[in-house]
């Protein structure tokens, strides 16, 4: 049908609604949907019949809402926020904000002269655990009010958690790099530990929950690395080149755990 066009008699009979069989009407309507020429012909015939159809057409138009797609007229800022919400869950916003405030304070302390020993930087000490608060809010009943709804959707699961983790890293890591660049300190010390903590949180979190894992890891890091470093004025071994193989092992173990158990986020 698409190669041919409706004859003018056929179109006329279609408009006037007489003596076309059902299959003819059907075929014609399918053709009209894709053929501008025939639609124009129909419109001409309808216009010619204006006295007969005018009132009906006006009535239909008056009941149609012509304001366009509902919700399409929102501001650019609002549209950005919504697009962002498909990456960073809205439940993560306060935790990300808190993380950024803490990091900013650490950075300012580093800038404001050296209360610490040379080579020791608060930012470097906190950087490895920086993504953990945001990740903790990525999946779980306790931090996300909508969790019960999310858990029953097809998009729930490992993919969504990874998507949200990426959002956290994108929010935190570039700022850390920028801060390091501004003060002239090296980023090499904390980048691998940061990745290690991220993967370990996800891996262990798939077993015991993200929030609990994040709390435990933050506690351990503070007790075993941050406080001793500050007390002894020496950067802990965990943040020096010697520990690289250890961090690689952590990344590997976390990845294995995540591949084995990450499915549990989708369904039990």
């Amino acid at each position, binding site marked *: 049908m698409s190669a041919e066009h409706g004859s003018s008699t056929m179109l006329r009979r279609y408009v006037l609604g007489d003596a076309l069989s059902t299959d003819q009407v059907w075929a014609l309507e*399918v053709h009209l*949907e*894709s053929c501008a020429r025939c639609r124009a012909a129909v419109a001409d015939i309808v216009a010619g019949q204006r006295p007969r159809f005018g009132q009906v057409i006006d009535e239909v138009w008056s009941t149609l809402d012509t304001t366009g*797609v*509902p*919700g*399409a007229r929102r501001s650019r800022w*609002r549209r950005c926020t*919504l697009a962002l*919400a*498909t990456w960073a869950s*809205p*439940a993560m916003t306060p935790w990300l904000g808190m993380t950024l405030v803490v990091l900013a304070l650490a950075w300012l302390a580093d800038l404001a002269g050296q209360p610490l020993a040379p080579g020791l930087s608060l930012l470097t000490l906190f950087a490895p655990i920086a993504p953990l608060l945001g990740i903790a809010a990525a999946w779980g009943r306790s931090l*996300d*009010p*909508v*969790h*019960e*709804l*999310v*858990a*029953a*959707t*097809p*998009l*729930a699961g490992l993919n969504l958690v990874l998507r949200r983790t990426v959002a956290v890293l994108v929010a935190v890591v570039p700022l850390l790099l920028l801060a390091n660049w501004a003060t002239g300190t090296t980023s090499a010390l904390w980048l691998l530990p940061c990745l290690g903590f991220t993967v370990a949180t996800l891996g262990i979190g798939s077993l015991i929950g993200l929030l609990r894992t994040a709390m435990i890891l933050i506690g351990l890091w503070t007790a075993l690395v941050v406080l001793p470093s500050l007390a002894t004025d020496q950067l802990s071994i965990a943040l020096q080149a010697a520990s690289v193989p250890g961090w690689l092992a952590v990344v590997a173990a976390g990845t294995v755990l995540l591949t084995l158990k990450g*499915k549990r986020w*989708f*369904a*039990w």
Partner: protein
Amino acid sequence: MVRMVGADEVAPTRFAWQIRTERLQVRAGRRLAVNGLTLSMGTGVHGVLGPNGAGKTTLIRALATVLRPDDGVLELLGQSTSVRAGLRDLRRKLGYLPQSFGYYPRFTVREFVEYMAWLKEMPKTDIAGAVQQAIERVGLANRADEKMKTLSGGMLRRVGVAQAIVNDPAVLLLDEPTVGLDPAQRLQFRDLLRQVGTDTCVVVSTHLVEDVAAACSDVLLVDEGRLVFQGTPEQLTEAGDDAAPGDSPTERGYSTLLAAHHAQNGGSR
């Protein structure tokens, strides 16, 4: 634009019941809240009645695939939920309103329902229209672009219903949907239930007996994790003993059946 009709849209249904369970056991914490429940539900509105702690919420959560069944069979749309592979497709056809319904206060009604539609993997081009329709169906069109923190409890409940029906689900699970609705809204809500129930399997858990009598085509009475009674609202009314406590025939039916169930099990415990 020509809309393509997919093969799955015209495929015949291959199941007798949208929901079928057999000796279903589900734990809530350590307690077996659903204990050996066997039931089947087809198209229509099914009211799940029962006293507090009877296992209604646990049952609905298991039906929503949020809780794992401990034992027994749970089939949704002819498909066992213990098979992980098909679960994703299955969840696209589910609508779920939990009892404790959380929300993001800074989102507008429309944004929230859109976000849920996105999570339910609806095609991008369908979302705007489907969201508007869902919001209109629950009667919130005039508040659609207001922030959720400005809404009253009953309105929030209706947003919850809107997000549940936005994907046009084949199985709609509503846990205490009438809480916080005023009488006029409850009437409106019953209309919506009847309308949706003509081609969908709707499960409504409630402790309001009169809701069930008015809007449901099928009543299930659950107590201590077991099915006590399944039948039409009329059968529930007929079961009522005139001496039983209750202000309406349906309430008397409810208390008669529950008392009988207690008497039956009371001796063994």
